[in-house]
Each structure stands twice: as C-alpha cells, then as structure tokens.
C-alpha cells in the first residue's frame, strides 16, 4: 500500500526534496500561525473592550 521503500527515500522526494518540503513546510507554518494569531488578537481585543466597558460604566456612575 505504502509507496516508499524507506524513510530517507521519502525525505529525498526523488531529488525534489527542497521544493516539496519547502512547499509543505511553509503551508504548515501558515496554517499553524494563522489560528494562533487570530486567537491572540481575540484575547487582546476582549481585554481592551472589557477595560473600555469598565471605564464607561465608571464615568456614567459619577
């Protein structure tokens, strides 16, 4: 079922290793970093909105 004879064959990609793994590596990095960046932005946004909400409720209470 599996096409490759050895792991080093798999890594070499028939001489195209640099191009194949360069493609897959950057794609994997993008798909890992993007959700992390979105989640971090969400955290900082919620923290900022909470601060703003507290500041607003203080000024309206006075």
């Amino acid at each position, binding site marked *: 079922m*599996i096409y490759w004879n050895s792991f080093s064959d798999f890594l070499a*990609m*028939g001489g*195209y290793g640099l191009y194949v793994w360069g*493609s897959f590596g950057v794609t994997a990095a993008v798909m890992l970093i993007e959700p992390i960046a979105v989640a971090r932005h*969400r955290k900082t946004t919620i923290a900022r909105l909470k601060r703003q909400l507290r500041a607003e409720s203080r000024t309206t209470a006075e």
Partner: protein
Amino acid sequence: MTDRFNLYRFASPATFYPLAGTLIPYFAAIAAVFGIAGLYVGMLVAPTDFQQGEGYRIIFIHVPASWLSMFIYLVMAGWAAIGLAFNTRLSGMMAQALAPTGALMAFLSLWTGALWGKPMWGTWWVWDARLTSELILLFLYIGYMALTAAIDDARRADKAGGLLLLVGVVNVPIIYFSVKWWNTLHQGSSVNLTKSSMAETMLWGMLLMAMCFWMYSIAVALMRVRTIMLERERHTDWVKAILAGGEQ
C-alpha cells in the same frame, strides 16, 4: 414556532456569535481528519508521476490553496453584494473575516507554484496570464484589507470594500480560464467535472486536501468573525453581557 426555524435569525450577530462558537471545533476537527487522510493518500500511497517524478506532490497543496484563494474571493464578493443590496450588518463582518485567510491562500498558491515552477520550468516566476492574474488576486485581497482598515466608520468601510470586491470579481474567471485563453507555461487543469487526467489516488489526495483547506478556512474565518462582532457591536447589550460574563 415559526421563529425557531427561521434561518434569517442567524443573520443577526447576537445569534450568529454563539452559533459560530459552537461550530468552530467541529470544522477544525473535520479539517484535521481530511488533512491526515489527504497527506496519507497524497504523500504515502499515491504513485510517482511519469513526467514530473516526485516533484508533482506539490500539487496536493498547490491546487487546494489556489482553489480556495478563488473560492474565498467569490464568497466575499457574494457577501459584499448581499451587504450592498440589503444593508445587512453581518455581511461586511463575514467579508472582513475571510480576507486574511484568502490572502494567505493566494500567497500559498504563488509560493508553492514558484517552488514547483523552478524544477519543472527552470524558473521561479514568469509574467504569464495564470501567474499574473493570481498575483493580482493577492493584491486585491491586500487592497481590500488596506481600504477597509483605513476607513474608521465600519459601515462605510464595508461599502467601499464591497465595491472593490465586486469590481475585482472579474479577475476570478480570468484566473480560472487563463490556461485556456492564453498560451501559458502553466499546465492545463488536471481535473474537470467530466474527466480527470490523474491517477485515482492522486485525485483522491487532492480532493481530500481541498476539503481540509476548505474546512480550515471556515474554522479560522469563524474565529475571526467573532472578534470582529465583539469589536463592532461593543455598544450593544448582548456584547456587554458577554464581556461582563467573563468571556475568554
């Protein structure tokens, strides 16, 4: 009773926000399953290509990224049309949430294309119809994001960005048919609705990876739209309730 099954209910951010939150883990999990299956079939099972050797395996991410870069743009243009026609709040938020993911897909399409072009054509880049129109697509995404970010009023940003999206939509069929309309270095499409020029396992690997990219894009866009909703609707009671309730 009729209200319970009313789809339009979800056009309201207050009801869409929790729905999106529930759906994200499912889309992420489906993306992971398709990704593992696609990588297994594409990288471990599929045979070598008789012309391109193992270098053809870049197809398993190049084609899904290219498809998604065009498809996400069409979805954004669809949201823009709905927003301009019916003045709905959700449409602009959805378009904005999709834009960075679409731009990344366009970038990945160009990046993997360059890494595929170098060994096969002997060059990273040529100014031919397919490559140039895909580069224009990336610039359209970046232009849309820059334009909407530069306008402070969210509704006006949506309108201006929506117009840009609708004008730019002409580029998508140009990308898609460029390999037919012009003589280009880029190979013709490998998959048609009626016939495919690929071995069956290759085709399966590509379709599984395309599903993975699609589900991934939905998951990330839903994550992003929830933050945009909180930001834009911060003066509404439902957002204040969420912020007071200690939302993470």
